[in-house]
C-alpha cells in the first residue's frame, strides 16, 4: 500500500576517497587479519545516513539529495558519496 504520499527514504553512504589515508579502516583491517581473515585486502570506514523525504518525486529527490551530499553530508575534498532512494514503508 505504498502508493501515493508515503514519501521516500534516501540511504546515503559516505566513504573516504581511495587516495585518502583512512586510519580507522587500516586499524580494522589489522584486527580482522589477527582474527584469521587474511583474505581482507582493504577496509574503508565511512558513514551511513538515512534521510526521510516528504516527497514522492524521485527525479527531484535525486537532485536534491545529490545537492545535500555536495553541500553538507560529504566533504568532496576527502570523501565520495553514493545513495539510493526507496519508497518509505516498503521495508527495503
Amino acid at each position, binding site marked *: 500500500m505504498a502508493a501515493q504520499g508515503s514519501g521516500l527514504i534516501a540511504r546515503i553512504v559516505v566513504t*573516504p576517497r581511495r587516495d*585518502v*589515508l583512512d*586510519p*580507522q579502516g587500516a*586499524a580494522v583491517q589489522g584486527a580482522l587479519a589477527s582474527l584469521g581473515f587474511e583474505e581482507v585486502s582493504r577496509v574503508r570506514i565511512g558513514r551511513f545516513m538515512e534521510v526521510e523525504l516528504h516527497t514522492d518525486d524521485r527525479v527531484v529527490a535525486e537532485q536534491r539529495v545529490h545537492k545535500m551530499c555536495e553541500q*553538507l*553530508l560529504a*566533504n568532496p*575534498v*576527502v570523501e565520495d558519496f553514493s545513495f539510493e532512494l526507496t519508497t518509505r514503508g516498503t521495508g527495503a
Partner: protein
Amino acid sequence: MTVTAAVVVFPGSNCDEDCRHVLSDVLDVSTQMVWHKESALPDVDLVVLPGGFSYGDYLRSGAIARFSPVMKAVVEHARAGGLTFGICNGFQILTEAGLLPGALRHNRGLKFVCQDVTVRVQHSDSALTSRAVAGDDLIIPVAHNEGCYYVGPEILERLEGEGQVLLRYVDPDGEVRGQAAVNGSLAAVAGICNSARNVFGMMPHPERCSEALVGGPAYGSKNTDGRRLFEGLVAAAAGGGA
C-alpha cells in the same frame, strides 16, 4: 591606533575566552565576542575562530559551524582582505567554508593528541609569522583528534610553490617528514594561509603559550612562542588598517 578584533563563539567553542584574554589582556587589542547567531560582524581588523568542538563535531569537525549565520560575514570579511585566523576547530571550520584549501582528517595514530609539539616556521612573509624567521622552531601545544591535514597533490604543489605552508611539525628527532609523526599530516603541515595571505589556519594552540605565567613549566625559559604569532597579526592590523 587601537587594533580591534572579534572572537566568534560557536556552541561548543572552548578556547574563545583564552583567545579573548590573550588579545585583550596581553596584547591590548580591543576585542569583542560575537555569538555565531549574529548575522553581522563588528568592523574589526582581525576575526578569530577559536578552538573547541563546535556542534559536538557532529558529521565532521566544522561542517555544521560553517553554516552558522555569522559565517557569511566572516567569509565577506576574509574575501575583502580582512585578517582571519582559525585555530584548531577554527582551522577546520575555515577549510569546510572553503576559505582555506584541504581538510583535517582523523589523526593517523587514531589517538586524540594533547601534547607540546615543535613547529618550524617556513616563511616569515605573512602577518602570522612576521615576528619569526624562517627556520625558527616554536613550541606550541596541540589538542585534537582530527588534525591530519590532507589536500590533493596539485593543490599541495601550489601551496608549496606560493609559500602558503607557514608551519610544519618537527618530529621528536628534530626532522620534518612527509607525514608528521604527531597526527599524520601530509607534508607535515601544521599551519597554512590562503593565496592572498590574509586567512590563516593552524592546529596548534598559540593562545595557550602566550604568557610566561601559563607557558608551561617544561621549559627553562617560560614559553611564550604563541605570543609571537599573535603579535605578528596585531602588527599587521596596526600597520595595514591605518
